[in-house]
């Protein structure tokens, strides 16, 4: 997001707040930081559907890692 004046920053902050709330309602399990990264990607023209896939993919990888870890232990 391009840096703007404080008003714009506030608005952006608000947008993140709102979107985070929506994501909570929808049980998306996105934390604020991930969400803001997603927002910036989408704002930069990334296809949301693809991004959704990516998030799912990464999560799954993380899980797999966890499983692997457990296996090792």
């Amino acid at each position, binding site marked *: 997001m391009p840096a703007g004046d404080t008003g714009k920053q506030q608005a952006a902050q608000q947008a993140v707040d709102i979107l985070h709330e929506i994501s909570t*309602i929808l049980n998306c399990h996105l934390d604020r930081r991930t969400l803001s990264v*997603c927002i910036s*990607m989408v704002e930069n*023209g990334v296809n949301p559907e*693809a991004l959704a896939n990516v*998030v799912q993919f990464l999560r799954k990888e993380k899980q797999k890692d966890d499983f692997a870890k457990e296996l090792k232990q």
Partner: protein
Amino acid sequence: MSGSADRSKRVDTSINRLIQQITPDEPHRTEEENQQRHDLFFEEIKQQLETPRPPPLADQNHASELIRRRLVQTNPSQALRFSNLYSRLLALPVLNQKWAMLYLLHQLTESHDPNEPDPVAFAEFKREQDVRKGRARPVESEEVMHGRRYAKEDREEFGSMGPSDNESDDEDYPQEPRGDGYHPTELRDVLKNPKPIRTLDGESNTKNQTNNVDYKRRAASRDEGVSGPPRRDVAIKSKLLADNYSEIDPSEPVLLRDLPYTLQGLSSTTLPFGKDYSLKLPSTLPSPLIGLLHTLAEPSLLYRTLEDFVKTPTKGLLDQSLRAAINSELRSYLTLVATLEGQIRRALATIDEKAPRNGIGKAGVTLKRCVVWTREATMGLRLMSLIAEESKTKKGGQLITLIHSFSSSHGDPIVGAFAERLLTPVTRPFYDILRHWIYDGELSDPYLEFFVQLTLPHETTQGKSGSTNVWEDKYKEQPDMIPSIITAEFSQKVFLIGKSLNFIRHSCGDSQWVESYSKASSKELRYGDTATLESWIDDAYKTTMRRLLHLMTNKFHLFDHLQALKSYILLGQGDFIALLMESLAANLDRPAGAQYRHTLTAQLEHAIRGSNAQYDSPEVLRRLDARMLQLSHGDIGWDCFTLEYKIDAPVDVVVSDWGNRQYLKVFNFLWRIKRVEFALSSTWRKVTTGSRGVLQTNHLTVQETWKTTRGFLAEMVHFVGQLQYYILFEVIESSWTELQARLSREDATLDDVIVAHTNYLESITHKGLLGARRRRFVGSDAAGSGSHGGEDDNSYMIQLGELLRTMLAYRDCVDGLYSWSVSDFTQRQVEADLRHTVPSPDEDATTNPGGPQSEFPALRERLRHLGDRFRTKLQILLGDLAYQADVDLRFLGVAMNFNDVYQPVRRKVKGTPAPPTVGGADKGKEKEREGDRDREERHKR
């Protein structure tokens, strides 16, 4: 182009951050490993992100709509919250791709919590582990990725859904329609004519900034390169659709352009309105479109109808408010139409003239969509037009009932909610009237819409009182006007409150209190919170009733008046009555024409002064008056004399004209009994004292006659005494106690007081033998009670009247006998003085006493006759009483005949008194004689 490079760079950074965020570096791995892994992911993601794909949704609003619908299904309470958040989000100036963000969230909805083990991931992991045996991990994972991607692409081409390959997701949206049906077509369009889709975008064919187009373009180029067999199918189908698309006239954009006017009820060139709420559709259109237009015509026509309805003149306030409410609903409908028009305009501005169907499909606004958008509004309009139609025959409360029935008993929640919304403005005048009524006691209802109505003078019902009663007849309740939003009990209260206030103000002259009360407690009443409203009404009810009773008791001395009525009119004040009767007796024996009002009032005054009545309050004594009833020929003073207790407003509400007449009736009856008692006892006194002196005789027949006469007299005295005791103590006193109990109840209202008083009077007249029905036989009661109902009503009255008359006649006769005896005595005295000889008794026994010209035999005959008549009548009366349903009346019979002196006679046939049977009479006489002897002895003692 530099912007684009900049953009991709930023995306790269973001990807890095994302990887870092979701799969943080594992501490147990080396940095190199972590870096390697990171790079791997990065590549994967980059690749995936750059995979061209169509924008998921054509319509930007669609994402929010999807979420909303989903929430409504799963968690309705959150749907509203979401709507709020969404509108706040829209208001923010920052984000350009809000819809995309929402779509992202939508895709991640109900995704698995990353902090908990995901079975799907675990399964995949297992599989990998199995495969891993021979291979290195990176390659494997890459392949999985690729495989997955292909699978996904295939699915996309089939127009199926799930962007993610998460199975659980697939299950989650089984019926979710894929974005929009016409995507494939678009794809093909781009393929066949590689023209810019958005003519507005300057750089069309190249990589331009608009991501959507970018994606589409890429998708198109991809399609050209790799076209799988499944895709072919779709392509052909969509191509067919596109090619077979025939031009219509007027074209859809033209129709769309005219649609807002139509929806507002204005004629346009393509869709002119005809006469009588009709819409003319162009005949050149294909039937599917006509169907759509039919659907769209509905709100238009309804709107026109309603608009005209709103303009029609009104019949009342509620009509007016209904029109106002409908009008405001119409205004919000127009707002919708305006929004629609804006959408259409925008869409029409972007369409491409040369694309098939003018590319209208892409623009996001089609006739079909307009139908969807106006669906809800149409429902509202439909309901309103229904209400408008029905309201023509209804008024006032019925109107509210009509709308309320929609809101309370209609199955469709949308209809219910709509009617509920409509109720608030519509009921406003009703609540205004209600407020005026329960806080001011005034009916401000110019169009007769309230359920309480002023009784018009000419239709005043002549009640049992025969005259108008302010309390009962001024206002009446209209049951059919009670709106269903309030219950019957509640409306009864409201009715009473207003009536009481009005009564306090106008009849009790206490408008000051009413005003201060209305100022203090007046509240704004509105539709909605029924519980509060009810508690308010309850408060108002209690306050008003308390005030009214307080006024009645303290200002108008209602209870004092009732007490006075009882003691004077119902002869409760014994000393007063006795004195009055004594002083009036001589006067009243004269013919009615010789009675003068001033003598009567003077005697009344005398009686008051001479008795305890003098200590009564002057307020009460002032109202007491003695007067004569209308005289008829041959009446003597006794028949016409009456005491009167004057009741004026507002107490006459309780002691109405009818009540006054009842009091008068009871008084006259009691007065007659009292008079007979008075006459009998004075005669008895004379006779008893005389028997020691002047009545001494040696003549056996005379002695015998006097003996029976005394017997009869004693019987009569007993009868009258019992009757009086019964009426005064059993009837009046017990009814009075009952009345007192009812009046002193905590929550008694004026209505209760009136009812209690009426009951009191009724029970007195009924039990006091003034109105009781005589029962012939118990068996025929059920069958025959209806047939001989009316004529028997006063039979006790008649019977008693006859008995009393007989007694009076008997008493006159006894007086005659007395004077004969006295004259006979003096004559004998004179003779004895002359002869100084005592006549032998045997001589007297044979000859007529007093000589041949004596009137003694006639007197004796008359006395015997009257005595028999009295006894017969009494026996009949007792016979009737014995079979009375009322316990008190039966008890009277028992008290009169406690030692079975009389043989109660049951008359079998109505109207013909059966003479006592011979045997029974004989036996009866035996007993009577014994009884007589008993009584004589008692009296002598």
